[in-house]
């Protein structure tokens, strides 16, 4: 059994969610999504990840609006959103805790999420600190929501919610999450305990696969190298050196 870091596990697991799209953009402060994108380039021919902070992986020539137009055009297949809170209807909150007019705690803001939530087919929600503080019954502010009036245009939406404890699948038909797998060492009971919203529990819940040796070797080789352009410190701290 190979040993691996928490981050290496999340990189490998997230990469498995990226499917058969061609283009992913990873935003600011997103080393794990960026690394997962780099790993997926090896697993899915034709897949390509743009990494904020890596000039060689920033193919935009028309300023800030271009990625949003690309998303509308269906050229942006995969995106990872984080946030402060997520609720059981896949509403995410990047704005504030408490009353938004006079919040207990203010965060960054919603960035492009509210628009992209309808445009990108494969959206992964990533909340690496799974607790009742982040996975809540109802978000304090909806930065992005899949809940639209009937007939609204939609070519994408949230598909997965990955945490450090488990993986949920979002079901657009019910508008709620289903537990897809639990990470090694976790139990359904522990996850229920740490989760502020209800979710569907299938009869059999598999364990999230561990990364195999070839995947870890890839992460510690090409992925680590590629990631170092934008995230040198993270690559050094969180990914083991090749062969270790």
């Amino acid at each position, binding site marked *: 059994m190979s040993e691996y870091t928490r981050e290496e596990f999340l990189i490998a697991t997230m990469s498995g969610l990226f499917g058969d799209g061609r283009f992913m953009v990873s935003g*600011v*402060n997103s080393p794990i999504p960026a690394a997962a994108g780099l790993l997926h380039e090896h697993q899915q021919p034709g897949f390509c990840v743009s990494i904020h*902070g890596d*000039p060689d992986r920033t193919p*935009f*020539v*028309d*300023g*800030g*609006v*271009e990625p*949003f137009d690309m998303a*509308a055009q269906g050229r942006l297949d995969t995106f990872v959103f984080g946030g402060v809170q997520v609720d059981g209807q896949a*509403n995410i909150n*990047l*704005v*504030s805790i408490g009353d*938004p*007019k*006079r*919040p*207990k*705690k*203010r*965060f*960054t*803001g*919603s*960035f*492009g*999420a*509210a*628009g*992209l*939530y*309808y*445009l990108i087919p494969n959206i992964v929600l990533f909340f690496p600190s799974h607790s009742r503080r982040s996975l809540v019954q109802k978000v304090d*502010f*909806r*930065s*992005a*929501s*899949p*809940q*639209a*009036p009937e*007939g*609204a*245009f*939609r070519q994408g939406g949230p598909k997965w919610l990955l945490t450090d404890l488990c993986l949920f699948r979002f079901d657009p038909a019910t508008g709620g999450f289903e537990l897809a797998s639990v990470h090694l060492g976790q139990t359904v009971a522990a996850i229920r305990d740490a989760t502020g919203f209800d979710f569907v529990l299938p009869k059999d819940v598999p364990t999230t696969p561990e990364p195999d040796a070839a995947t870890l070797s890839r992460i510690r080789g090409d992925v680590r190298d590629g990631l170092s352009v934008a995230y040198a410190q993270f690559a050094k701290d969180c990914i083991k050196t090749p062969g270790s």
Partner: protein
Amino acid sequence: MLAEQIKDGARLALPSENSGVPVAVVRALIARGARDLRLVGGPTGGFAIDLLVGAGCVASVEAAGVSLGPRGLAPRFCAAVEAGEIEMIDSTCPATHAGFIAGEKRLPFMAVRGVFGCDMLKNRSDWTVIDNPFPPHDPVVVVPAILPDVIALHAPMADEAGNVWVGNRRELKTMARAAKQVLVTVERIHPGNLVKDSAMAPGLLTTPYIDLIALAPCGAVPTALPPDYGPDDAMLDSYASAAKTREGFDGWLADFLGPDGAA
């Protein structure tokens, strides 16, 4: 000099981080004690917005996000929102882009895809949902034109004819054309007229759109100005650390303004 053009209470558009942030102008605004500015991020903001908020120059911020990027939250901005000292008008990037594009074309409104179900749509009385006038008559979010009183931006160069090269920061052209007044600082003056240089022309904001240009070497420091320079990491680290407290911010700002800054 440019900063004097920006009146107290003005609706001031600012570029997103590392996209031509006019730090020299921001510094002058703080030095002159500007008040009640209504900032609009293009569509997001960072160091400059945090600095202006911390210095007490700001009445409101309209942005899709304000942060110090890799250094995390914008501390003075967050503290001011939490204390109710500024009004925060939350947006989302494509809606702000749409507002500026409508402004550039002097259209009253523009549609934007998605944006349903979020609290910005609920809270903002200036956004609404209409039916697409064409089949399938689906509901569509529309936002009004953004027409700032003034935009300040910093760019790598102007030429002798008064054209400013903004390179691939296309949204700066859009924002400038939407604004009533356009103030530009540049690193250097390029001889000749770049409109005649077919390679450079597509990256120009040309002279008809510009009110004032001033030379300000290192005018975006500590933010990055591609392709001229990257971020000043040491300066940004010291800011992010100091600005966590009111006192730390005040000390950092005094250093930043220098001995003549108190005037």
